[in-house]
């Protein structure tokens, strides 16, 4: 049986595909006010079902995604953002918002790749306008080390050692299946105090921030704000190779090649 969220994703995608061809949404918006207005119109057609008219994450369809458990649709007006390249506690960069819009969130939010780039950037502008802190604060991405060509001979063994010594099994389980004692015993909550399960690292489709090596690296460094997943950036200072070994180990848990 298909989950209700899958119907919502299908519905929103079809709705957008039908609407994006209208002159109002395809017009190139160069003026900031026009860009914002274009974003507002798109938001009202595509996003408010889940995120609500005021962007507070209280749209009617949101209840079908997760009524009593995490994740609920993001509250753009004052809540933290999970998927960022910025340090823990900071708002995401424009590129972060664009990336999430483009890729979607597996199992939760559809990809908006069907929209033109201009349309997606106009949505980014509108989402930022819902929280005045976007204009008040600087949002500087963390300096993440470049991705090495691939794992070395000892990477997986070292990654497994770090996985254990950094306490990952407590939530993600000893085999990374999301069944660690903290998760199974119901000790994990999101920022709305809704129960949340640790990610099953053995299934690429459950990696909501992306399943590529650099996506995992970014998640480890920034943490996922609003969830118990912390940032490990300060623990990996001058140990970038160790961090990448952890990434290679996590990717090996699914037994699939890196994409």
């Amino acid at each position, binding site marked *: 049986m298909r989950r209700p969220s899958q119907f919502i994703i299908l519905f929103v995608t079809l709705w957008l595909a039908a609407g994006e061809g209208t002159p109002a949404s395809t017009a190139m918006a160069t003026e900031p006010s026009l860009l914002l207005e274009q974003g507002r119109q798109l938001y009202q057609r595509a996003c408010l079902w889940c995120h609500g008219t005021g962007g507070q994450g209280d749209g009617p369809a949101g209840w079908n995604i997760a009524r009593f458990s995490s994740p609920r649709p993001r*509250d753009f007006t*004052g*809540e*933290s953002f999970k998927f960022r390249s910025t*340090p*823990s*506690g900071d708002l995401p960069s424009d590129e972060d918002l664009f990336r999430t819009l483009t890729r979607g969130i597996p199992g939760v939010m559809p990809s908006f790749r069907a929209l033109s780039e201009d349309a997606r950037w106009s949505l980014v502008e509108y989402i930022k306008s819902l929280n005045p802190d976007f204009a008040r*604060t600087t949002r500087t991405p963390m300096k993440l080390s470049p991705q090495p060509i691939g794992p070395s001979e000892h990477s997986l063994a070292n990654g497994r050692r770090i996985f254990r*010594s*950094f*306490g990952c099994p*407590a939530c993600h389980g000893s085999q990374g299946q999301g069944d660690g*004692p*903290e998760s199974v*015993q119901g*000790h*994990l909550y999101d*920022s*709305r105090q809704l129960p949340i399960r640790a990610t099953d690292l053995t299934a690429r489709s459950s990696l909501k921030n992306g399943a590529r090596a650099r996506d995992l690296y970014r998640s480890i460094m920034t*943490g996922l*704000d*609003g969830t*118990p*997943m*912390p*940032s*490990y*950036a*300060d*623990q990996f*200072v001058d140990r970038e190779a160790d961090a990448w070994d952890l990434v290679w180990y996590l990717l090996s848990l699914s037994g699939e090649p890196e994409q």
Partner: protein
Amino acid sequence: MAHRFDRHRRLLWTRALAGLLWLTCASSGEAGESAEGPLTGRVVYQGPAIPDRIADVTRDADHCGKTSITKTVSIQQQTGGLANAVVSIELPSSSAMPTTAGTAVPLVISNSRCSFAPRISIGHVGQPLEVRNDDPILHNTHITADRRTFINVALVPGGRPVRKPVTQPGWYSVVCDAHKFMTAHLFIAPHPYVGITDQAGMFQLPRLEPGTYTMTVWHETLGTIHRSVTIPTQGATPLVVEYPKERLSHAD
């Protein structure tokens, strides 16, 4: 030579008088406020005893023990002085916000023996906050303001402390996601007029301009109370803030 001797004798007399004055205030249990000096006082609770907070330890019991016992209400027996109450002044929104001294000094919260030290902290806008781990186990310090994350960082044993400036005033909740029984509170003030009571319930705030202000006293378990405080142009007035003996409805 005689001149130097006279000056030395005057200095001794001055110090003796100052000491006598301080002893008089301390022994009477009264605090003073003065337009010339800092605002001092005592927060008192003389209601029924409140039991310690006890929680089961579900992880790292080898280091943390099987149960966690937190003394949230600490009273000095002789005076009823209440420790760890945060005292702050609400300035009128129209008044110019004075600068805070010492904001470059980091405010440190340590994970120590499966507890935060200190559990109740105060700081000022712009002050760097440093979180560190002094335990041989992993901690996960997660600090939020309302539903917004301020910082959520893993602290591995022997790992680096993490530092970040606090730019927004208000209350911050500190938890360890690895050990749910570990909690702390942090208040960041936009001005210097904030203090925290010591083991005797005593507090001290910087000198205020004469006038009438609202004083807010917060305690983790006993809740929040407000008092009107008048700072005279000169002279001293006893200042004792007493929590009601009945629990406040909004208290924990």
